[in-house]
């Protein structure tokens, strides 16, 4: 029983980890918290759904289509909105991304209505029994694909020139600029990568959680996961995602279902009280 729940938790946690990772990557390199991340995810998943179910295209095409769409969306939002707010107050960029989130929701409602859609399973098949545990191929598939995405992102950040530039941007924007990093272009790259991560998370999440225009609320869960793990780097975000996923699938055994929704908040408050920088965060002292 516990083991099955653990697998479920890891699978939900994978998606949280993907969301948190995208958010932290973007926040660290560009300084903007993208409150529309979940709605990027929602919209791209709807695009995948449209390609897959409504146009009856194969899975690979649908996923590729959704990723391309998400990349374009990220690029467009950065160029049209965020680019003009760099260096401005935090409130301005929060409100702008919130505005983008609501615009995306509005358009999605117009095209696909408010209904809940069943997204076809990417990894179909019967439950696999291993000893006492019961695992669905979907959960296993999600866990494995997430690990693959994390490794790809790791390779991108550490082995490519663009990735190195992004990390330089994260460490010190001024120095990166002086070293010849094209900061403005790298901002676009960050948003494109963020968009793709959102699309992947959405496609992995949709079969278990269904597809609806309200899906974007996961942004907040993602941010909370990232803070729990440590907002300073993407590995903290990944850790936080898994912790939140596991805790919120095992705890419902012990507390009433109506209170499940407050688990992330309670966990967040505990972490902020005990270790405000997150589980693997370092304390950053800002110098003038």
């Amino acid at each position, binding site marked *: 029983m516990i083991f099955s729940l653990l697998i479920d938790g890891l699978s939900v946690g994978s998606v949280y980890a993907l969301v948190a990772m995208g958010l932290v990557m973007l926040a660290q390199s560009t300084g903007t918290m993208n409150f529309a991340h979940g709605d990027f995810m929602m919209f791209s998943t709807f695009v995948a759904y449209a390609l897959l179910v409504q146009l009856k295209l194969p899975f690979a095409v649908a996923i590729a289509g959704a990723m391309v769409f998400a990349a374009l969306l990220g690029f467009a939002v950065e160029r049209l909105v965020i680019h003009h707010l760099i260096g401005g107050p935090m409130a301005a960029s929060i409100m702008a991304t919130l505005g983008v989130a609501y615009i995306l929701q509005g358009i999605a409602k*117009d095209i696909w209505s408010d209904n809940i859609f069943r997204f076809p399973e990417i990894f179909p098949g019967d439950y696999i029994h291993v000893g006492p545990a019961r695992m669905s191929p979907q959960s296993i598939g999600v866990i494995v694909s997430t690990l693959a995405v994390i490794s790809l992102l790791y390779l991108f950040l550490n082995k490519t020139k663009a990735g190195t530039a992004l990390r330089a941007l994260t460490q010190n924007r001024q120095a990166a600029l002086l070293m010849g990093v094209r900061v403005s272009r790298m901002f676009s790259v960050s948003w494109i990568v963020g968009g793709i991560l959102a699309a992947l998370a959405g496609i992995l999440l949709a079969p278990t959680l269904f597809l609806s225009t309200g899906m974007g609320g996961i942004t907040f869960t993602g*941010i909370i996961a990232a803070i729990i793990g440590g907002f300073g780097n993407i590995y903290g975000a990944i850790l936080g995602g898994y912790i939140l996923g596991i805790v919120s699938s095992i705890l419902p055994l012990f507390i009433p279902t*109506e209170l499940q929704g407050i688990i992330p908040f309670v966990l967040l408050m505990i972490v*902020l009280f005990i270790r405000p920088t997150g589980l693997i965060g370092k304390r950053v002292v800002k110098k*003038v």
Partner: protein
Amino acid sequence: MEKKKVGATRVLLLYCAIATYFASAFLLPEYWRYLLLIMSIMVIVTQGLNVMIGFAGIFSFGQPGFMAFGAYMGAILSERFPWIPFPLILLAAGSASAFLGLVIGFPCLRLQGFYLAMATFGFSSSIYQLINYLKPLTGGNEGMYAPAPAIGSLKFGSTTSVLLIAAVCVVLVQYAVRRLDRSRTGRAFKALRDDEIAASSMGIDLAREKLKAFAFGAFLAGVAGVLYSYAIKYLEVGYFSNMGLSFFLILVVGGIGRVYGPLFGSVFLTLLPQLLGGKFSQQMSLVYGMILVAFVLAAPEGFYGLWRRIRRIGAPRTRRRGAA
């Protein structure tokens, strides 16, 4: 420094506006009276948000949550203890919200701004769940009736009397925020908003000032929640969970950090659905989102900034000094 003299015409205009405001509680038709009431409540909540975001620079998603907390707190108090006069209920619900704000704010305020923003978001969504869970107190999903404001056996349930109560609150809040704007505390808020390090080296206790601003915002949200329960008479969690975006919109449209910003913003947001008509309700998130983005990009100071720009047209050019 010499105090800036306020023109006599301005003072007269202000009194006229307040008189019109109170008179319209009697003169307007019922529907518009109700809209004015809702608008007044919005002014109170967003004024709290204005002090938090606009003055002190701390972002919060907590306003709807504190409002729900205040509303239920007020309703439960006046249901159990009907002898408590309503001004005390307003104060009690406000203070309880403020206290809750302190509890949540305390661990977050030493951290970067968005930690607090996320904690307030988590708080809001948790309070809805808690309210639904505490069925014996709150009626859970089915909601609960909110008793009308009363002093002893005198009841003031009509829209007109609730509007009058709200109007008194709005005038008090506007006055308080205007005083705050020019006080030592207000200047401390703005200093820490603009540069935390500089502010703390000037001897401003960052955490304390932030907590003050946060508790003030929560207090106003609590009071507004009770007033809202008087207006809608029947409480359900769903009323509150969808409010967040409108508050931000009011703030941005009116002008963040301006004493009269929430006032202009609330008028705008109340009139907008009336102007756009029936099709509006389906397109709400799209319209709100577009207005929000448009204002943040093109008029970050809201109507206030636009008005100043219009007034400057034709006026002799002055070069700004001190801009580095």
